[in-house]
């Protein structure tokens, strides 16, 4: 059995305009798991549920082995670093170091040298008022803040929003190094394709408040391929029989483009049917997400 840093079982959150769940999600310890989904799919709400900032209407949530909303949960939370997508404006008037002074009290493992090193790496001056910081600067400051107590678990909600490309690269590098010991965990929400590609070990698709599946990254990209096949070799009807097919279209030049989410099985099927694949193309994360969103839309309509 794998150790989970976070687990959600049958969790539901009902709001007048939105229902989240039922969500079943296990975040394995020691890995980077990325939640990918369109805006409004429930990614941020999931983070807030995990941290017990909002209560679910149903279900069971465990954070680092502890059921949330148990008493003394600050001890569990002191091992977590949470970077929200948006920061509340109530501390805008504070200079950054004042916020640091306040925050560090809550973390027994706080390491001032680590904090200074991160500020230097990210080129952040913590003498500036938070409200005066640019979006990117604020993000980098908050990132340094959540990393300075060596959390066991990092929850990152759209970590790179507002970062310039250089700061982005620094962040990716810092996060890789953070993961180096092997027993730490990152759960992040992102729709930056390249970020997920560089960081994630597992990818979770979330659409309309539902978890559509959890995939090992390389297996996912190795499974979703588009095959280009000459039209005389395959009819639309025959293409419907290809394992895992989820899209058939004319590609011009007499070619048919068939998308499969089971590339190895589809390839074996083609060989068996005597169909020659002229060209193949691995789908990108956004292509896969677009197909899943469309399928989910069809499901909701029917």
């Amino acid at each position, binding site marked *: 059995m794998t150790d989970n840093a976070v687990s959600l079982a049958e969790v539901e959150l009902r709001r007048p305009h939105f229902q989240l769940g039922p969500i079943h999600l296990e975040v394995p310890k020691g*890995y980077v798991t990325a939640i990918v989904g369109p805006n409004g799919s429930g990614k941020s709400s999931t983070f807030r549920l995990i941290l017990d900032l909002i209560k679910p209407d149903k279900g069971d949530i465990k954070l680092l082995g502890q059921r949330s909303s148990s008493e003394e949960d600050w001890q569990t939370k002191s091992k977590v670093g949470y970077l929200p997508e948006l920061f509340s404006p109530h501390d805008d008037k504070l200079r950054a170091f004042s916020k640091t002074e306040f925050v560090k009290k809550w973390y027994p493992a706080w390491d001032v040298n680590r904090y200074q090193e991160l500020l230097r790496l990210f080129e952040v001056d913590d003498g500036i008022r938070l409200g005066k910081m640019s979006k990117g600067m604020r993000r980098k400051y908050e990132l340094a803040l959540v990393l300075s107590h060596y959390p066991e678990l990092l929850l990152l909600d759209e970590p790179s929003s507002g970062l310039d490309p250089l700061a982005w690269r620094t962040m990716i590098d810092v996060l*890789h190094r953070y*993961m*180096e010991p*092997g027993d730490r965990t990152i759960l992040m929400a992102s729709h930056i394709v390249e970020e997920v*590609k*560089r960081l*994630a*070990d*597992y990818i979770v698709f979330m659409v309309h408040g539902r978890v559509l599946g959890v995939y*090992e*990254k*390389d297996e996912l*990209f*190795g499974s979703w*391929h588009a095959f280009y096949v000459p039209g005389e070799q395959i009819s639309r009807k025959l293409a419907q029989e290809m394992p895992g097919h989820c899209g058939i279209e004319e590609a011009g030049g007499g070619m048919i483009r068939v998308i499969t989410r089971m*590339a*190895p099985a589809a*390839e074996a099927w083609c060989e068996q049917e005597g169909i020659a694949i002229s060209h*193949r*193309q*691995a789908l990108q994360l956004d292509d896969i997400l677009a197909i899943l969103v469309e399928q989910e839309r069809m499901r909701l309509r029917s």
Partner: protein
Amino acid sequence: MWLPIQINEQSAEPLYYQIEVQLRALIVSGQLEEGVLLPSIRELAQLLKCSVITVRRVYQDLENEGLLRTKQGTGTYVARIEQNAMDRYRLDAVTEGLEAAIDAGKLVQCTREELMKLFQAVLDRKFGG
């Protein structure tokens, strides 16, 4: 540490297999010598933009083949490889190449004799016979 491993995302070969073949070649060709410390699993995953699950699998497979050894807490090293094992791996790569060439011939309905003649001709050209 940088390793000259190239990933082809468009390939039908699974990623772990692509990495495994190339890392094995680097070891048996002697480009990575005995005792060399390989990147950590997370580092190599970062370098190749793949998951740690894939890299762990590659290291595990090559360790089972006796090409790598892992010391608890310090990392993964290139193991000592016997000469005859080296020779076998050396020929493995050649066999694979020849098989691919013959498959290419069969695809265009070459006969055995045609292939033999071609093979001889290429051999003569390459060795200047």
